[in-house]
């Protein structure tokens, strides 16, 4: 690649980081597709994007954890190759990961000096270390007891240790990967205070997030990533949440699916005041109420982590509701097991189709009967009917265009699109009356995406009620007959698709009720 040392800029502000044309491929995915990013010295620069947009991958390249397949990294105007985190640190780049890398049984100061060649010979000099930690802590408002064991600290305090670790190594560029996802609102305020002190002292902060509020509150500039590409870089004061939402999810309609007007059937699902906890035991659903009719697609729009995942699990029996009902006449789904719900004709296309929706080491044939293996069609006197399973596989592979050498191929060998077609083939085989489809096209290529959408529309036209959970607003707009916006486990409003506009939905996704938006 030609040398472009002094990339032309019309700006007098010195640049901390320039990434140009960064490409990073993983088997089957392009995580970064020619990304350009310019971060000025002394600013808080947000990287905004949905899950899977390539934010973390890009920063891992800057931190030396990944090597780019193509592209160039410039640090303070000089081209550089960062081969490892060690090299990154040597160049004063620090990163605080979403999941902390601390040794819980060691003390704060032990964690901070871990891996450094401090002291004389094999001995550590904690007195000097402790002084430096104290000084840094005081300077930047990172109060934490250097002698405390890490396991005794709160999550917020552990994050401070991570930041101190980077500062102790003289980082002047600090990458924070979704730092607020684990914090309480008060801790977030503290963190933001610290970050402002850091930039005031001349450091540069790159802040990865998918939360619009945070971008508006903390950043000087923001670069929006979408599907592996940087779509825009804007000055924060000159933008709005609505504009960012639009940039983040993309406005242009790529796909043209033919959608007939809905033929509404009877009400099939009645959800009333549904509450549930997330895996950490915190409230995830906080009183959701909505209904769903046969022959319609109800799209659930929202920024990820606002209860969508928990909602899909509660409705399919994988998570217990703490309060409320979900009536699928005549049953209350909150009182049924996953097996009963499946037998009632509820199909579930799960968020994590590989980790949850399939058994990767087992064959296509066996995965296709994962839910129906007990039925008389596939099992007689406790013995599986392999011929029936084989015929079922042949039919499904043909109908859903699952491309594989044969029905005995392990599912783990298939591409993402083929796996999703397999999951759809299995879930939709019994003509379900209610379908929960979570991120059905996430990570799929254009062709597969279109196909999946067509399949869902076909089910709707057949009369099934479909709950479509997606972070892809294009998809929600295209497929849904009504759009439900979810924010922190609550329904912000339900908008008929023809009345919905992106700006309004974007504001509701950021936590405004529909009444506030429309008035």
């Amino acid at each position, binding site marked *: *690649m030609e040398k472009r040392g002094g990339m032309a800029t019309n700006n007098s502000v010195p640049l901390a980081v320039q990434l140009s044309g960064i490409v990073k491929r993983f088997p089957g995915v392009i995580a970064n597709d020619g990304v350009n990013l310019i971060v000025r010295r002394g600013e808080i620069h947000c990287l905004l994007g949905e899950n899977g947009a390539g934010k973390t991958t890009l920063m891992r390249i800057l931190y030396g954890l990944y090597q780019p*397949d193509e592209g160039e990294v410039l640090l303070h105007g000089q081209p550089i190759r960062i081969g490892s985190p060690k090299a990154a640190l040597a160049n004063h780049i620090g990163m605080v990961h979403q999941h902390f890398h601390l040794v819980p049984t060691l003390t704060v100061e032990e964690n901070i000096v871990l891996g450094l060649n401090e002291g004389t010979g094999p001995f550590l000099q904690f007195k000097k270390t402790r002084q430096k930690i104290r000084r840094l802590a005081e300077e930047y408002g990172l109060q934490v007891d250097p002698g405390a064991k890490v396991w005794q600290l709160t999550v917020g305090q552990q994050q401070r240790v991570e930041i101190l670790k980077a500062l102790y190594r003289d980082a002047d560029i600090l990458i924070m990967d979704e730092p607020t996802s684990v914090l309480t609102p008060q801790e977030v305020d503290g963190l933001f205070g610290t970050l402002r002190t850091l930039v005031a002292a001349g450091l540069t902060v790159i802040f990865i997030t998918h939360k619009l509020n945070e971008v508006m509150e903390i950043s000087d500039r923001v670069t929006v990533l979408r599907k592996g590409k940087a779509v825009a870089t804007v000055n924060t004061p000159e933008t709005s949440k609505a504009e960012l939402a639009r940039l983040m999810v993309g406005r242009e309609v790529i796909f043209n699916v033919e959608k007939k007007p809905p033929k509404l059937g009877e009400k099939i699902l009645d959800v009333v005041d549904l509450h549930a906890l997330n895996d950490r035991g915190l409230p995830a659903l906080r009183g959701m109420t909505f209904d769903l009719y046969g022959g319609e697609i109800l799209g659930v729009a929202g920024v990820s982590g606002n209860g969508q995942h928990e909602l899909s699990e509660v409705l399919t029996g994988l998570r217990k509701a703490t309060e409320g009902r979900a009536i699928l006449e005549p049953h209350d789904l909150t009182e049924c097991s996953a*097996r009963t719900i499946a037998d009632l004709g509820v199909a579930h296309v799960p968020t994590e189709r590989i980790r*949850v929706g*399939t058994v*990767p080491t087992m064959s296509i044939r*066996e995965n296709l009967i994962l839910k129906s293996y007990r039925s008389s069609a596939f099992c007689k006197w406790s013995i*599986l009917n392999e011929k029936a399973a084989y015929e079922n596989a042949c039919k499904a592979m043909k109908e859903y265009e699952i491309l594989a050498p044969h029905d005995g191929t392990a599912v783990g060998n298939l591409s993402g699109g083929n796996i999703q077609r397999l999951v759809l083939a299995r879930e939709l085989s019994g003509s379900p009356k209610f379908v929960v489809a979570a991120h059905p096209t996430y990570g799929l290529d254009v062709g597969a995406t279109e196909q999946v959408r067509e399949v869902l529309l076909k089910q709707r036209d057949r009369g099934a009620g479909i709950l479509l959970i997606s972070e892809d607003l294009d998809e929600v707009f295209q497929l849904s007959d009504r759009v439900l916006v979810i924010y922190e486990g609550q329904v912000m409003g339900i908008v008929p698709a023809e009345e919905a506009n992106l700006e309004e939905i974007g504001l509701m996704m950021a936590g405004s009720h529909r009444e506030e938006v429309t008035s």
Partner: protein
Amino acid sequence: MMKTPAWIQIDRRPSPSGLTVFAISVIAILFALVMAGLFFEFYGVSALRAYGYIIKGAFGSRLGLTETVRGMIPLLVIGVGLVVAFRALFWNIGAEGQLLMGAVAASGIALFSGIPSPWLIPAMFLGGFAAGALWGVGPAILKAKLGINDVITTLMLNYVAIYTVHWLILGPWKGLTQRGFPYTDRFPTAAFLPMLGGTRIHLPTLAIGLVAAAVMYFVVKKTRVGFEIRVVGENPDAAKYAGISQTKITVLAMVISGGLAGVAGVGEVAGIHHMLFNPSSIALSYGYTAIIVAWLARRNPLAVILTSFLFGVIMRGGDVIKISLGLPFQLVNVFNGLILFFLIGSEIFVRYRVRFGTKKETA
């Protein structure tokens, strides 16, 4: 275009072929043989000569061969059960204790039940199966309901079983005709298992082992329950998603696994010793060795027939090197350890294809 240098490239191998797995297992055993050979050399015995003796001792005579099969029987019966437990992702390290509890139940029935002769032996096998299963089900329930680590509970129950046997043979079951030795009385002859003429091969246990291997192969591969066991073992999240009860499957797998270990215990007391005595002389670490047997069989119940025979040879080899070369029998444990070490190490080569060199241009 850039070319990324990479010294080692590792790719997933989602479904390794049977041949690959077999070849990798054989290579692992060869590595263990070479390493164990070094130990022979340390003792001043040529490794080749030692292996020659072992092969001759295990196959060279009728006595050698039948003794090899004798050692193979408990390993086969336990190993088949362990394969089932491992397939359901339950790490049963407690076959040693389950074997002993099976032996205890068989001894109790033989000595005290008064069941008439044609029914006595079947009753002992049933009782042994039930006792072993009971010993295995506890940890299964603890794991499924409370998330308590299965390795620890099954392992600890081994010691409970060992001391239970000690207590019985020193206390309530101490034989009146054994001149104060810590043995139970000898079983009535109706409780002796039929043997292959003039050998120590107890036929019923061997038959149970062979049938169990075939049946479990069929169950795992072709039946509804086997399907559920595989789904739970391969991807517990998918099992939950498909509405399969992990508790039910874990308990079932441990009934089979513990029960078969119990059956092995019945075979040892009713076929070989005809009494209950020192637990370590009855169990002979079969319960631990069978873990390696099951591991080497790579989740295939039928393959256990082969791998248990291999370990029968190794155990027989221990006798041979003790008698012919004056080396300690414990070298067998060293050898077993080495095999397990290399087998577990080879696991990565089964699941991943590792290549050395430079990555091809991707674009």
